[in-house]
């Protein structure tokens, strides 16, 4: 008996160790980036264009580019994703088609990000002749974050109690009226959470925009959706591998801004979820 408890203690110790091996490096990464990146941040770094072959100046065009790309992606993905989620939660029956749709969503989520880049290049850049541009990049990112939005929105819709729907229907409302006025408002916080998570994902991805939108260096801001843009993740890749002798400070500074942007969005999503849970009426 004592032996089996000793075995348990040893096993639990190793499980604890495994957990530390994951969580400690995560903490370290965040601390390192904040510690070395924060001193690089000043008004000039945020508002100036890159100068001297990206060795000096700021990252303003990359920030703007990322905001454009991410906004475009969400404008495209949110309506389609939301309607797809409504279909899955309100209309679909338990049949082969539904099974296929779910499988397609899983696959869409699993396609390697660089393959999205290839797809965007073939379809939007070349076939539709959009060129490497904001619109090509946004559409590519939009398709990539579709699974995130569908999955989270569907969960939000399905968590609205069935009785809400029954009451509305029994009062004579049609199915769409019920969805529009009862189900959607109640699922809104969950949908918002999913949307923000999708935004965060799109902001951090590099591979899908490599050949569809991102410019190596572009001193001016884009004029239309058919212009190329700089983007934060690609800029970080460029100054850490392609351009020699970039100050370490600038690299950490860029990494800090990108990480801060992504984590801020995740934080907002978490707060919304938390507040919603507290307020939940059912």
């Amino acid at each position: 008996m004592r032996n089996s408890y000793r075995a348990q203690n040893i096993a639990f110790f190793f499980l604890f160790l495994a957990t530390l091996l994951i969580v400690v490096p995560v903490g370290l990464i965040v601390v390192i980036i904040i510690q070395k990146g924060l001193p690089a941040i000043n008004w000039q770094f945020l508002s100036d264009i890159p100068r001297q072959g990206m060795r000096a100046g700021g990252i303003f065009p990359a920030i703007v580019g990322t905001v454009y790309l991410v906004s475009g992606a969400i404008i495209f993905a949110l309506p389609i994703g939301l309607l797809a989620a409504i279909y899955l939660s309100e209309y679909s029956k338990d049949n082969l088609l539904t099974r296929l749709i779910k499988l397609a969503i899983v696959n869409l989520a699993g396609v390697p990000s660089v393959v999205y880049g290839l797809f965007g290049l073939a379809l939007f850049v070349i076939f539709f002749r959009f060129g490497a541009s904001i619109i090509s990049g946004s559409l590519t990112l939009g398709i990539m974050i579709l699974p995130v939005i569908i999955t989270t929105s569907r969960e939000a819709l399905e968590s609205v109690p069935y009785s809400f729907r029954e009451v509305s229907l029994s009062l004579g409302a049609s199915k769409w009226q019920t969805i529009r006025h009862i189900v959607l408002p109640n699922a809104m916080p969950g949908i918002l959470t999913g949307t923000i998570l999708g935004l965060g994902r799109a902001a951090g991805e590099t591979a899908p925009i490599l050949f569809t939108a991102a410019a190596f260096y572009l001193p001016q801001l884009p004029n239309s959706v058919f212009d190329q843009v700089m983007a934060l993740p690609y800029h970080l890749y460029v100054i850490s591998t392609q351009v020699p002798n970039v100050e370490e400070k600038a690299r950490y500074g860029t990494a800090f801004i990108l990480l801060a942007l992504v984590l801020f969005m995740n934080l907002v999503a978490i707060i919304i979820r938390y507040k919603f849970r507290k307020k939940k009426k059912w």
Partner: protein
Amino acid sequence: MRKLKEFIVEKLILICGLASIFFVALIFLFLLKEGFSIFKTVSPFNFLFGKSWYPISEPSQMGILPLILGSLLVTAGAAIISIPIGVGCAIYIAEIAPAKIKEILKAGIELLAAIPSVVLGFIGMVTLVPLVKTVFHLPTGLTALSGSIMLAFMAMPTIVSIAEDALYSVPKTYKEGALALGATRWQMIWRVMLPAASSGLLAAVMLGIGRVIGETMAVMMITGNAAVMPNSIFAPVRTLTATIAAEMGEAVVGSEHYFALFAIGIVLFVISFAINVTADLFLHQRQ
């Protein structure tokens, strides 16, 4: 009028519901459309098993075996590291950690999932790569090993969260039964929980591996990018994904090189498709 509006809305919803299927098919079609032309000049066998990748030399050689092996080597390394640690962490979170610590740990894992891969690649370059170089006395730290360690780390959120779900969904009665028979908690976990959750755990591992194979930026930044037949985990390698990302910028649209890179995309798509479908079957079987 209202009926017409509802009719239109409902059709729109149906169309969007089908969008995922449409996009998966569209991705595959366009990869095929652009990539298939390579097989006019190189046979599929020589493409997959050719030992040299010199796409822009004259005559060009388009064998992606070094890249496939590069991907396999890095992935195998990552799997060896990430499976025990990831599943161990999932067990700790699901069964052992006190409620408050559990929330903190889960937040930590979610945080890791949110960090963009290019940021992890950058951090890997400045911390892990020099570390591997000094520890193993290597001429360069940009090796398959560095890639494996980094990718193992990046697979963790997938493995831990799905494995934890699998453990969580084991019926409570199984646990209570085991404990009532006098088993210790560890015996219960090892002999009852793990076998009961096995298909879910397998799915977790597979999806983790899928994530690793498809990872691009971090792996491109820290594996050294040498498109040669890999012979050691202490040497630079290049993966399928990194090859596309690194070379597509220079490939001329419509050239053989361009077609070959799309053909690599087909290979990656097929691999990820197979992994996801199989993992989904395992997950479904559990329910």
